[in-house]
């Protein structure tokens, strides 16, 4: 009986499977095209004539590197790039240091006020920092921080600390406590346990934290355009926007060239480190 049913349904199962495979691949290919199309347009436009008339996918020549030359000779792009790098590196160093230390303390020690201060972190993290922009502006006036890198760096760091300290605690929690215990028995001090035993084990996560902190200033437009008003102090995001914001004179090709120089390194860093933060993503999610 069962044999008979199996035989009669084999062909319909085969047909069903064909359709399943067909539509699966169709969906994935269409989605891939939708993803790649706009990226390809930007990429290819960067190598086209400077007075590009339409922003489309067009493989016909002539090709040139003129846009890149123009970027560094006639605009402040190089300065903007350096500015962004300075701000990003400073943000990365300070934020990762503060967040790693705090995360370690919350993971490894019991101390008075621990629970409440963690809840404090969580609540502060919910406040959209960028909503306090006006206050940042006034504070900046008061301490002469507008148009200066140290000030905007502090703003970025402050915004990044609460959530990331909380995440770091989660990463440190995944390192077994046995390591600390046995090191303590061997007479290792607090600092030695942290630096020599536990820290090396969370290095991948620290790398991910560093990547996030580094990418923050690269991706931010709002704070930078608000606090850095002088053209020579702009970051790449603000500068690039100026190429296309003038409706009468949109410099598509120049924009595309500048965009590639930002997007490519960040994209590669991201893909290189993705396996770390992808696993961290689900580990953090599973903990709730």
């Amino acid at each position, binding site marked *: 009986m069962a044999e008979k049913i199996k035989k009669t349904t084999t062909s319909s199962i085969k047909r069903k499977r064909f359709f399943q495979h067909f539509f699966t691949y169709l969906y994935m290919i269409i989605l891939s095209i939708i993803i790649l199309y706009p990226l390809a*347009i930007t990429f290819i436009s960067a190598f086209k004539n400077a007075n590009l008339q339409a*922003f489309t*996918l067009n493989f016909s020549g002539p090709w040139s590197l003129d846009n890149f030359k123009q970027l560094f000779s006639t605009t402040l792009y190089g300065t903007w790039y350096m500015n962004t790098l300075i701000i990003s590196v400073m943000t990365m160093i300070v934020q990762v240091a503060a967040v790693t230390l705090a995360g370690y303390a919350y993971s490894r020690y019991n101390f008075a006020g621990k629970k409440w201060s963690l809840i404090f972190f969580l609540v502060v993290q919910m406040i959209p920092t960028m909503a306090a922009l006006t206050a940042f502006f006034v504070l900046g006036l008061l301490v002469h921080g507008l148009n200066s890198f140290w000030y905007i760096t502090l703003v970025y760091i402050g*915004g990044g600390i609460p959530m990331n300290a909380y995440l770091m605690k989660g990463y440190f929690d995944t390192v077994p406590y046995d390591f600390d215990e046995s090191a303590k028995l061997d007479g290792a001090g607090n600092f030695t346990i942290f630096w020599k035993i536990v820290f090396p084990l969370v290095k991948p996560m620290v790398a991910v934290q560093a990547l996030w902190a580094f990418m923050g200033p690269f*991706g931010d437009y709002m704070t930078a355009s608000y606090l850095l008003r002088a053209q020579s102090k702009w970051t790449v995001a603000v500068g690039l926007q100026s190429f296309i914001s003038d409706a009468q004179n949109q410099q598509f090709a120049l924009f595309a060239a500048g965009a590639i120089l930002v997007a490519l390194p960040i994209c590669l860093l991201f893909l290189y480190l993705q396996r770390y933060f992808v696993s961290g993503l689900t580990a953090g999610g599973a903990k709730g």
Partner: protein
Amino acid sequence: MKENKQSPRTSALLSIIPGLGQFKNGQKVKGGIFLGLFILFVIEMVFFGGNALVGLVTLGTNPGVDNSMFLMVQGTLQLLVTIIALFFYGVQIRDAYQTAVRIQKGKEVEDGWKGIRDSLATNGFPYMLTFPAYALMIFVIILPVLVTLFMAFTNYNFNHVPPQSLISWIGIQNFHDMFFLSSYRATFLSVFGWTLIWTFAATTLQITLGVFTAVVANQSFIKGKRLFGIIFLLPWAVPAFVTIMSFSNIFNDSAGAINVQVIPFLNHLLPFLHLHGLPWMTNPLWTKVALIMIQGWLGFPYIYVLVTGILQSIDQNLYEAATIDGATAIQKFNHITLPAILAVAAPTFVTQYTFNFNNFTIIYLFNNGGPGDVGGGAGRSDILISWIYKLTTSNTPQYGLASAITLLISAIVIGVSLVVFKKTHAFNMD
């Protein structure tokens, strides 16, 4: 005996002047430090703090000389310092009490520089580790947020620009204007309405797309999973502002790829549709449609990656058992896959909604909040956060009103997040 019993309380009472309780407990160095800090604070209060707090109340009395905003910031800073000082005041009283209790129980109490160094290295270690994070948070987040909070109750706007003129407290006038003053009310309701539609539509699209793609791409027969995986990750890997600006060009009415290339191509492929170019940048409806689609494009990879991780952790035996029981693919999804995803990713999904609620970058960079305007400086595709930005950067800035809207936004976001955190027991930590 009796005196001994009272001794902790006496120590605590003595510590009303910081340090005295510690002196009584025989901790001379510790007491000296506390007393010294207390004297420093009193001096600070006399020479700076008192005036700063008064300044916060009056916001200046002398137009052209007093800068109301600076007074407000200094006053807020002093308020924070005072609160922190009061906190430590309480801590040192508790310390005096507990040390006295330890003495009573016959335990040894350390003192001297060495004792303090030792206790800093053991009990104090976690505090030293968290100190930088706290210092940064207090001065870079709490202080500005408090200033914003205060600003919402002032008339700080283009008519009152310090130091030329003074700013004054006006109570809940800004909130009143927002809800009841006809011109602002119309703008507020219009912007708020679109903010809600935007948040719901864009986030739901990106979550649906992410979950669907993960489920489809995770089927075992698929070849080239690695390649597809990298392609699907690209919208997340490329900085959002770069892609948003690119899309802003691509959707350009006259020169963009959608009108110049995609629509002619679709017409060629499916001639019976008779598609024609759309006014993406000049018609508010089409701008909104484009914004939602672009956010779907930008936001789905994060969900896709998260859900893929969850899918790989689901026990395959469940699916086999369901197949034997004759379950359809949809039944399997509804009863096995979806519950597993929601159990892990529900909090992340909610944070995606709060993220888009404040997603300034896409709204501002795609079409500058335009086209058109709905009064109060807001364009037809502006959401609350981009309206705030425009209110404070225009030629006629409205800082007070902007702060009031900011408070409203923050209240909504914090409220939603609190509910989520409570539901997911994120507060039940050890």
